[in-house]
């Protein structure tokens, strides 16, 4: 275990860059994750999330820049970094022939923990797999397997637990179960959780703080509620038959903070206290032939759009 440096953040990235040939996966990423946080790294596919985790867990060597875990450079001291982190991979990584109990017990032994069997039992309880402890992992459901991997990641009481897309490919019920367990993880007072996701919903539901990244760079960082509130209100989308001149009328309507003409008759209006001002907006453009009105409370999707100027493409 690394020496604890009380003032050092759990994770700090400075100008982290990773190039694979001509492709730049990380482009000078700066980030700071405080101790004990439940932190989310949100971004579309290809944003550089997995590469970031790869660097932090010593699996990927950065082209330039630095990653510090608890104040220590991961490139300089990979063994220390490896002992300090837990990692739950995006892809499955368990031996299908072993039972959950054996998987955890073996991992506990490989981490040289005292009382490996008892520790394995504690974590099976924590992720609700005590009843499946003696079945080969190949007979478990996708969600159960993922929970087993999460339990394995926590086994050695890591300082930072990295979860790479913990619910990707799961059905909604299994996903909800994972969220439940993630919220109640036995973090034993100090484990910082850092998860990546391309699901806005997941980031919103789980994370105390978020960093949105896009094309290998930090877009914005903060608590989800603060990020959403900073947009200054609700968003109303209008689709109009004749959009010419509508933007000016909307701009003059009460409560309106901002207008963006998205083309094709679509206009995006940022409005304070949407439900109260919606009627006024509708009235303002009634003459333009309203095809569709869609009001949304601010979501992280809006946050992403606001900061990057393009839509969040979760799937390609």
């Amino acid at each position, binding site marked *: 275990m690394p020496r604890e440096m009380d003032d050092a953040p759990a994770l700090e990235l400075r100008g982290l860059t990773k190039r694979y040939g001509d492709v730049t996966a990380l482009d000078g990423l700066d980030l700071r994750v405080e101790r004990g946080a439940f932190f989310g790294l949100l971004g579309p596919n290809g944003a550089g999330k997995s590469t970031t985790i*790869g660097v932090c867990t010593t*699996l990927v060597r950065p082209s330039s820049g630095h990653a510090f875990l608890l104040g220590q450079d991961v490139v300089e001291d990979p063994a220390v970094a490896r002992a300090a982190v837990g990692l739950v*991979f995006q892809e499955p990584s*368990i031996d299908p022939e*072993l039972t959950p109990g054996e998987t955890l017990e*073996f991992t506990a032994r490989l981490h040289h923990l005292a009382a490996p069997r008892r520790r394995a039992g504690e974590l099976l309880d924590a992720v609700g797999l005590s009843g499946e402890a003696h079945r080969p992992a190949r007979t478990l459901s996708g969600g159960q397997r993922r929970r087993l991997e999460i339990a394995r990641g926590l086994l050695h009481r890591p300082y930072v637990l990295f979860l790479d897309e913990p619910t990707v490919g799961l059905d909604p019920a299994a996903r909800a179960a994972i969220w439940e367990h993630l919220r109640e993880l036995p973090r034993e007072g100090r484990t910082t959780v850092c998860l990546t996701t391309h699901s806005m919903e997941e980031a919103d539901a789980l994370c105390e703080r978020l960093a949105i990244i896009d094309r290998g760079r930090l877009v914005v960082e903060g608590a989800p509620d603060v990020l959403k509130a900073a947009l200054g209100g609700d968003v109303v989308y209008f689709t109009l038959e004749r959009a010419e001149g509508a933007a000016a009328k909307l701009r003059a309507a009460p409560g309106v903070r901002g207008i963006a003409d998205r083309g094709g008759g679509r206009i995006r209006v940022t409005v304070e206290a949407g439900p109260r001002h919606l009627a006024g907006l509708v009235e303002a453009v009634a003459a333009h032939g309203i095809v569709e009105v869609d009001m949304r409370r601010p979501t992280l999707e809006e946050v992403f759009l606001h900061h990057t100027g393009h839509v969040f493409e979760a799937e390609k």
Partner: protein
Amino acid sequence: MRQVAADTLTLLRRELLRYRRDRAYWVGQLVFPLAIIGIAGFGLRNVDWVQGAGYSGGLASGILVLVVGSGAIGGGFSLIEDRDSGFLRALLVAPVSRTSIVLGKLGARIVVSVALVVLLVLPLTLLTPIRLPHPGAALVALVGVSAFFVALGIALATQLRRLESFRTFAALITIPLYLVSGILYPLENLPVFLRMAAYANPMTYGADLFRWGLLGVHELPVGLSVALLTGLSALCVVVAVALFERGART
């Protein structure tokens, strides 16, 4: 050092658990050699081996070495399986040395091979002149051959991604190694250039030593076989670990 030993033991136990659960594996590994020795042994009943050991004894000893060797190359096969299941990825982020992973697979193979040979030798004492006069020599041969083939399998696995290509290449490499090792016929029957190849093949020394252990006959000096088998096998293990170290990084 102690940590490597402890990790090796943990990984060895995991491998053994996997073998233990695979019932079909044991049935196949036990039935196959008995069937060959039983059938071919009759067909070759009157053919003589070196020093009057009889062909059935020589063949049985050879087939057992083959079982040990082809089983051991499965160590590399299981490395690809571990990579496919993703288990290897999890091992590589744990604080475990690559050496432990290789030695764990080797250790498990030795345990499984000893079990197989013990189970097979008993019925073979009824069918062949096998009497196991030098069990120590047989064990050294078994460990050496296992180490050589586990190393070969792992080296191969670090270079190949798919199970199918592994199978093909493994056969491509092992079959010539078997053919020039004197497990099917005495080395003295081979022309000089093939005999030279045989002398560079660790399997030759393993097979001869094993024959000495099982039947009490040998073609090569026993001391030389022990020295060359252990030396060459150890070298191969070191190379396999080095290849694995290099290939395991991304």
